[in-house]
Every structure is written in C-alpha cells, then in structure tokens.
C-alpha cells in the first residue's frame, strides 16, 4: 500500500479510527506480535468506509527494521512466533496428528514452527519483495512437500507476501490493486465461492468431497487417490456438487436449439455447438446430460442390454438417485486407466457410471464379435454373448469336476502314505517287543540263578555253624570261625 507513514500515534489510539487506509506505525520492539491480535480487533468494522482495507492493521516488525511497516490482515491476528494456534492445527494436520508427528523431531510441531518462523522472518526482513517458494525451500532444511504446504498456508493467510507484488506484475498502482484484492478475499474456507482442495491445493472442479470429521474438503482426484489423512476412510466423505448452471443459465431458445441440433447432427458436438451458437461443445454436452432427456438417452440403452454383470451395479442403476454419499472409489490408482475411470465415476455419480459401464461392456462385446457388422442389431450381439457365456460356464464346470477328481486322488494318495507309515511303525514296535521279551526271560533266568546261589550260601552258613557247635563241645580253645 503506497501510503506515507502517518505520524506515530500510540497504539492504544486504535479505538479512534482514522480512515483505515493509513497504517499505524507501532513503536518497535515494545510490541510483541502476540498482543497485536487483540489490538487489531479493536478497530471496529465500521472503518470499512474505506472499502478496501476492512480491518487491516499494522504490526511493527519485531525485527531489526523499524521503518518498515508490516501489514497483516485481521483474519490472521492469531499469529504468534511462540505458539501454534488452532487454525494452524486444523488446516495443516500433517504436522500435528498421526504417529509420524507424534514422534516429533523432524516432522512434528517443532518442524512446523521452524518452517513457519523462518519463512515469516525472512519475508519480514524484506517485505517489499515477494518471497518465492524456490528461494524459501532452498533455505529451509526439510522436504519440499512440507515446506510448500506451510508456505502456501502462510501466503494464503497473508503472513507472507502480503502486499508484495506478484510474479511479473507491474509496480505502483497495480501493486496496490493486487494488494487490496488479496486483502478483501478471505483465504480458502467454506465461505469462498471457489473450492480449494486441502490435499493438493488446487481448485476443485465441478464436485468435491467434504469430511465432517476433519472439517476439510478435497477434490475428486485426491479422494480417489486416498490423498487424505490416514485417520479417515472413504465413508467419512460426502460429495458436494458445484452447480455450473449458475454461471450462465441456458435460455429456452438455446435449449431448443440444442435439442434440434442433437436431433439433426447426433453426436457431432462441433456442429451442435455451432448450431446453438454461443455455447462450447462441453457446455452443450453438459447441458444435455443435465436435462431430463439425458436420462432417457441413458435409460433406453439400459433397456436394450440385459446383462447381469454385477448385482450391485444393477441395483444402483435402478435406484434413481444419481448422487449418493456412499461411494466405493477404486483406490488402486497404479493403473492409470483405472485411476481415470475412478476419477470420472466419482464425479459423475453412480447411476451414470453404471450406465456407462454397461455401455462400455456392450461396446467391447460388439468389437470382440464381428467388426464387419456395422448395422448389427443389438439383440443379436446379446444372443451371441449369451452363447459365449454358456460355453464359458460349461467349460468352467468341466474344469471344476477335473479339479475335484484331482483333489480326491491326491487325498487317497495321502491316506495310503499315512497307512504305510503306520504299518512300518507297527512292525518296528513288534520287533522291539520281541527283543524286550528276550531280555525279560534272560533276567528271569539270572534271577533264578541268583536265588539258587543265595540258597547255597545260606545252607553253607548253617552247616559250619552246626559243625562248629559240635566242635565246641569237644575242643573249646579252638577259635570259632565265623562265616559271613
């Protein structure tokens, strides 16, 4: 803003607002940025007599340069170097939630603080110059993705590059205009007309997905790819459509022209758009689909097909609710074609997607069958397809039976082997039993021998006793021989 610095009123004079265009030069160093929030809110919204700077306040640079005036929009009044506010926690959950952030260190709140404070300080050191992302991330130690997200967040909320000229813009008047327009529009949130996806920071197209749990909204691409926090499931998201007809309503005349053109030219959208006049091809197609006739176009095709491809798909197509909150996105985005299909089906809604799938399958079967028959009625392809299906089913049954036989054979083989094993074991056990029997007999034999020996010994003991007793009576002085 190209206004000369006003004479310095003390900051408390905010309550008496001058036309809010002139920024206040706050005394340097004595005003910590954290209190600036409260001061700013004292500027009553009534000062929006100057339509441009509704609620713009000046914050003295907490750093070296006291002659520079840093402007920060009032909706970013929560900013403080020392703490992290709820706004930041909400809009940049990657740094505050999940197990990665909980470990802290390089990915957690400290990292966020480091990035944020460094970026803000660097910008405020030279506020007239735009801080580019390249310059910023070259000067920050960390991965580019995280730095970019913090950078974009700060830029959106006016804490960075606020009032700085955009890339390649002229100085002076243009600068002020750019600055004022950026001031008056709040950053992305549920209130802005254009939807910014929280996941990839790009503008959402015709539809987007909101999640109440985390109060974020992502575009279709991010939803399909699963580019949201790990804590959320696809079921948490609701699809919201942005009506395009609000841009310019189709008059009856234009609609009439459109229908005529479609009748005459069929699917030649170039000619159709020419006929309609001021509408592009895409607009014509979109308008046609949105008309009630569009459903009839799809509906007639459905009647002719009688394939029972998927019960789920058929049920969905019969239910005439084109937009359902419950979607089953195909999360496998590795195949690029599948990713495209998933993306389109997410935008378009289940009914149309089902009809398109059926149409695609019928088209494929037509290609497979006969390329020559250009005017083959759809019923014949149906029959041929039925025949193919029957063939396929009989083949499948034959294979099933084969498999079952194989299984039975291998089962019996297994059983045989087991039996053999058991018999082997039995024979071995029998051998061992024989051996043991022999041993037992030997033991018996030995025991008997031992018994006999013991008897003999005892008898021998008795006899010398008897002999000794007789000898005792005859000769006493003879020593008694003890046998033991």
């Amino acid at each position: 803003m190209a206004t000369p610095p006003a004479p310095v009123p003390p900051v408390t004079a905010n309550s008496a607002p001058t036309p809010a265009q002139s920024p206040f030069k706050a005394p340097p160093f004595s005003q910590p940025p954290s209190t600036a929030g409260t001061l700013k809110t004292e500027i009553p919204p009534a000062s929006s007599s100057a339509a441009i700077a509704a609620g713009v306040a000046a914050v003295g640079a907490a750093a070296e340069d006291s002659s520079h005036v840093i402007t920060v929009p009032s909706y970013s009044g929560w900013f403080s170097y020392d703490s992290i506010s709820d706004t930041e926690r909400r809009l940049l959950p990657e740094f505050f939630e999940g197990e990665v952030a909980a470990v802290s260190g390089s990915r957690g709140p400290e990292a966020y603080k480091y990035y944020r404070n460094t970026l803000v300080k660097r910008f405020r050191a030279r506020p007239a110059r735009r801080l580019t992302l390249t310059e910023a991330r070259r000067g920050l130690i960390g991965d580019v993705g995280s730095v970019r997200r913090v950078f974009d967040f700060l830029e959106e909320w006016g804490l960075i590059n606020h009032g700085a000229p955009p890339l390649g813009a002229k100085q002076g008047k243009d600068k002020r205009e750019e600055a004022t327009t950026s001031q008056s529009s709040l950053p992305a949130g549920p209130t802005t007309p254009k939807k910014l996806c929280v996941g990839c920071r790009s503008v959402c197209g015709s539809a987007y997905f909101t999640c109440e749990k985390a109060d974020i909204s992502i575009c279709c691409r991010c939803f399909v790819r699963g580019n949201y926090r790990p804590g959320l499931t696809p079921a948490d998201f609701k699809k919201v459509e942005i009506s395009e007809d609000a841009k310019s309503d189709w008059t009856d005349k234009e609609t009439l022209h459109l229908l005529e053109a479609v009748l005459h030219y069929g699917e030649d959208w170039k000619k159709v758009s020419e006929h309609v006049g001021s509408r592009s091809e895409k607009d014509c197609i979109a308008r046609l689909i949105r008309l009630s006739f569009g459903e009839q176009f799809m509906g007639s095709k459905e009647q002719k097909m009688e394939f029972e491809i998927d019960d789920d798909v058929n049920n969905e197509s019969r239910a005439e609710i084109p937009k359902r909150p419950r979607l089953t996105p195909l999360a496998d985005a590795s195949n690029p074609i599948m990713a495209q299909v998933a993306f389109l089906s997410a935008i378009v809604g289940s009914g149309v997607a089902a009809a398109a799938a059926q149409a695609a399958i019928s088209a494929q079967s037509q290609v497979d069958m006969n390329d020559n028959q250009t005017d083959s009625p759809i019923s014949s392809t149906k029959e041929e397809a039925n025949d193919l299906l029957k063939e396929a089913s009989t083949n499948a049954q034959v294979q099933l039976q084969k498999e079952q036989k194989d299984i039975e054979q291998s089962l019996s083989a297994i059983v045989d082997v087991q039996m053999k094993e058991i018999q082997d074991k039995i024979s071995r056990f029998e051998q061992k039993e024989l051996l043991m029997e022999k041993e037992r007999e030997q033991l018996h034999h030995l025991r008997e021998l031992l018994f006999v020996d013991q008897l003999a010994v005892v008898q021998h003991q008795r006899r010398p006793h008897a002999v000794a007793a007789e000898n005792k009576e005859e000769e006493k002085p003879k020593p008694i021989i003890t046998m033991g």
Partner: protein
Amino acid sequence: MKTVSLGAPRSSTVKFRMPTRDNLVPIRVDIEVDGQRYRDAFTWNPRDPDSEVITFAKRTAKELKLPATFVPQILQSIQGQLAEFRSYEGQEMQVKEKIMPLKIDLRVNNTTIRDQFLWDIGNLESDPEEFARTLCDDLNITDPEVGPAIAVCIREQLYERLLVRLFLL
C-alpha cells in the same frame, strides 16, 4: 538430546526404506536446454501425490523464469528418480549397526564446507536434517542455503550405501 536406544536388536529385517527417521528421498536435477542450465538438489517425500511433482515443476520454472521447455524435463527427472526409489520399496533388507565415514565436500554460494564424520548407516532413527541444522547453528553459518545442501548430501550417501547393501545381499 534425542534418546538413543542402546541395546537395539542386533540385526533386523525391515522393508526397504531410507535408514533415517523420516523416509525422504534425495533428488538431484540437472537440466540444460539451449544454453540455459538448471541445477538443483532437494529432499522429497515419496508419499506425496504425483500432482505435487507437477505443481513443483511448474512453480519452479515460473519462479526462476525458466522457459516452458524445462517443465517436462524437470518433471521427468524427478519422477524417474522417485520411480526408481519406489521400485525397490517392496524388498526386505537387513538392518544392523554399521558405522561408516561420510564425507561432505561442497560449495554453496560463498561458503565451502569440507567435513568427514562417522555415521551409523543402520540406525533407522538417524536424522540428517537435524545434523545439518546443528552444524549450521554451531558454525554460525549465515547463508540459509548451506543447510539443505548438507542434508541432501548426507541422504545421497546413505541412499548409495543402501543400494550397495541391497544388491550385495
């Protein structure tokens, strides 16, 4: 101070990843078109969506005022390196303590850093970013571009050792 876990398991098997606390890939870009040269090195999170690469390429070209022909080349270069990293990702690898010397020998703007130190390339909690930050703080380096260059240099060496170990297994 970070807590170092002593008594960590001798050798464990993990899925392929950078042996650092954050699984970030070092990316180096060097493109020359019609006499104009763009050289850059930075760290990338392989879990970022592909749209991030496209946005980055466009934004960088715009901010550095490079001609539009650079954008697809930058895109290809980054995506190629990311694809290479992702191609290894399914494999299992042995991780155990292995202390190896890392070297830094680089010049950023007017600052030259030459250093050599030991690093445990099997420590999954190591943090090159913290190392770079501490080094710059301790040496009172004023140029902010030195830190990232050091971090990328360390990551590149770790990645190299990782691949060597992977292929020797």
